């Protein structure tokens, strides 16, 4: 079909948006609506599927096909939809609880199968909709209603988990950086295969400031690292710091006494280094944003359709009468 000319407004539904004022979800909705006209897909061929959570209300606000399903299962529902309809552009909206707690199983299986879908994981490190319990990404020691003495759970590192599940596209962005988010959304869409985009999202009601250090002017330069394919890992004020590899051990160096040529050069296709990058997850290293890893691999839906075509070629298109009849019959008159 001829691609139509759209504006962001075409993707906004008539439903009133009901997130708390100041919620990071607004920014994500806005960027997604503004990226949609640029992906070259007709509106009727786009589907948003979500689970349950504040973030999962998202499809109601998109003027596309959509489904607000049940907690944790958006990935499984999207798998069935994509298997049945490889022609559609399928987007999955999920929260940190939705995708990593109740829906953890379906997430890893979708990733390993590599259905061509785009997963937007809204990570606010809290259960928003149920009013503020800790989530699988909340930091250890976190005090919430359900953990008055502090959480004793070791948190998930979502991107390391997804690397472990052999995801073919892994990226991170944040609600406070619309420009970067738009770029990541487009790259997620462009990737053929399952794209996992983790979006740091501020829940200003139950977990305000979870990513403060990465968004505040005073600290963000030192706490964030923006990845560019083929470029050295540089961060800090005026890119004054770099990251070098000593064997497999990343070390922070000052650019005053290091040449850029000696730095770790980011390579999206390097699985081992991507694995190391996902491990930049404590206060010692800046937190990476951008595309960690990208790989081309057979799509599940292509292989599925391929086998059907092959079976048709081998046995001929199915004939119901022959199937009903089977191979051995006898007659009684």
């Amino acid at each position: 079909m001829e691609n139509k000319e759209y504006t962001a407004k075409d993707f906004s539904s008539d439903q009133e948006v009901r997130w708390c004022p100041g919620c990071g979800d607004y920014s994500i909705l806005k960027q997604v609506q503004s990226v949609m006209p640029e992906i070259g897909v007709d509106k009727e061929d786009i589907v948003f599927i979500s689970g349950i959570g504040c973030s999962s209300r998202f499809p109601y606000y998109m003027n596309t096909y959509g489904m607000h399903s049940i907690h944790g299962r958006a990935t499984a529902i999207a798998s069935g939809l994509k298997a049945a309809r490889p022609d559609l552009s399928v987007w999955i909206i999920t929260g940190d609880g939705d995708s990593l707690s109740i829906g953890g199983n379906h997430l890893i299986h979708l990733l390993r199968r590599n259905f061509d879908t785009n997963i937007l994981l809204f990570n606010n490190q809290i259960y928003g909709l149920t009013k503020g319990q800790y989530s699988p990404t909340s930091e250890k020691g976190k005090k919430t209603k359900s953990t008055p003495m502090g959480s004793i759970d070791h948190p998930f590192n979502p991107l390391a988990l997804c690397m472990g599940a052999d995801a073919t596209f892994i990226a991170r962005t944040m609600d406070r950086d619309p420009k970067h988010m738009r770029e990541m959304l487009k790259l997620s869409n462009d990737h053929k295969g399952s794209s996992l985009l983790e979006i740091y999202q501020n829940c200003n009601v139950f977990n305000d400031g979870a990513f403060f250090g990465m968004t505040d002017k005073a600290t963000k330069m030192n706490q964030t690292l923006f990845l560019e394919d083929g470029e050295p890992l540089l961060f800090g004020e005026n890119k004054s710091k770099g990251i070098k590899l000593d064997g497999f051990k990343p070390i922070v160096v000052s650019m005053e006494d290091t040449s850029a040529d000696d730095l770790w050069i980011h390579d999206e296709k390097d699985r081992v280094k991507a694995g190391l990058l996902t491990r930049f997850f404590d206060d010692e290293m800046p937190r990476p944003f951008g595309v960690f890893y990208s790989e081309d691999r057979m799509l599940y839906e292509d292989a599925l359709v391929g086998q059907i075509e092959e079976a048709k070629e081998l046995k001929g298109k199915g004939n119901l009468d022959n199937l009903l009849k089977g191979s051995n019959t006898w007659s009684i008159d």
Partner: protein
Amino acid sequence: MTQETVEKVVIFFAGDSGDGIQLAGSQFTNTAALYGNDLSTFPDFPAEIRAPQGTLAGVSGFQISFGSTEIFTPGDECDVLVVMNVAALKANLKRLKKGGAIIVNTDGFDKRNLRLAGFEDGENPLSDNSLSDYRVSEMNVTKLTRECLVDITLGVKEKDRCKNMFVLGFVYWMYNRTLEHTIEFLTQKFKSKPEVLEANIKVLKAGYNFADTCEISSSRFEVKPAKMSSGTYRNIMGNQATAIGLIAASQQSGLDLFYGSYPITPASDILHELAKHKNFGVKSFQAEDEIAAVSAAIGAAFGGALGVTATSGPGVALKGEAIGLAFMLELPIVIVNVQRGGPSTGLPTKTEQADLLQAMYGRNGEAPIPVVSASTPSDCFEASFEACRIAIEHMTPVFFLSDGYIANGAEPWMYPQTKDLKDISVPITTKTEDYLPYKRDEKLVREWAIPGTAGLEHRLGGLEKEAETGNVSYDSDNHEYMVKIRAEKVERIAEFIPLQKVDSGEVKGKVLVLAWGSTYGAVKTAVKELLADGFSVSHAHLRYINPLPKNLVELLSGFDKVLIPEINNGQLIKIIRDKYLIDAIPLNKIKGTPFEAREIKNRIKELHDGK
């Protein structure tokens, strides 16, 4: 040697689960079917794949009843018991008629086997006269098999695997059958292993010739073809029929079949069967668990496919929440439950009808779902087709209930032709004027707008929806209205299913046996025999359990007593009592095995006599 003509024979093959009993049984079944006998079979598997050899727990069995008359069940009592070892004898002797024949592999009665089967030192049923009521034919099958294969270079283990062919050949001779169909089957199966093929055929023939020449089997029986309705038949197993029913519904509706499933006994064979038929465009998807399987089916249905998922009771428990979602979304999916003994993991390889109430009520909130059940192996075809038809035409999830007994059982099937199948009309819309996702037609069915259709973009979800628009609504009056309208929509399906018929007997009388599912054969046999003896009894068998046929109330009122036999602790009876306020009488068996016709017969007689 005598040759006797008999009407009906029941054979039970039993041995270690590694003895190839199921293969021998199914081969005998095919040969009997192709000869024109009516028949019914029942495999009885141990729960473990390879339980310790020689033990009672490891015994695998296969029962076949075949005859020149109509056969509705695999039979109550056996005429012939074929046992590969002493454990198989010990576990199954109770099935054998007094005076019945036992064919014994003596090699399975050595010291070790006797000990494993729990006999004291020195005890041996073959030598202590305990089998004097039966006709025993003893032969050392292992030794005879090995001897016949001396010239073949296979290893001893591989040679011993042909033992089942020896007894099969022996039984073929007893019933005057040709070896031709089994040889054909073996030729296909061992296409790429000529040595194994040769060995199997040799041993099969050796068993046949041994019976012909040896002194031990003195009688041979003739079982004439059955006088069945004229037509063309094939042999069919329940799970196979279900798979074909789903494909047929896909073809008749023009919708692609998407089948999401997670392996579980006794439903897995549907997945195996469908995976073989990709040339029908079937998309079979082995999901990571049952929740994913049903969720994927819902996703596929949203995309405009016929979404089906199959499992057994434990899997249905996992699917509950998603089935509720499908109910809210009003999307067509079919949930197949091949029931097995519960609760929990229960008796995975045994049969039970104990998930009816789970299908009826096993969801949060008010979520009635149509329930369709199959009564025999071949009936799985029509019943699963009907489940799909209702799902699609009424835009609702539908339960299709089968069970381990009919799923694995086999019978001759006068299969239909495509031109005899119903069309299924699909409520897909492409009209953009006045489209509202939850606007309903006179059946109360909403239209199905699928992604890819310009102008019909809409959002569905599990939150309560406003009538017509489908927008999220927390309004209390709207909620009550929607709960009632969804229930009414399911009730109205009663207008689109056949009226309840009486299977045997008159439409009025003393006792009505009202049954559902796999009890069909036993009830039918019992009622037919009692009718012949002049009793006032009838049999009605439900296929549609939700909604029930419109005329059922009238039918029930025509009888003094209503007996409801079930392989559970009383489930359909709760529904019938609730709905019609009648004092129906339960007959329950919860032993993991089907009813025997005589059990039902006895209860009917008691009721008939006012007890």
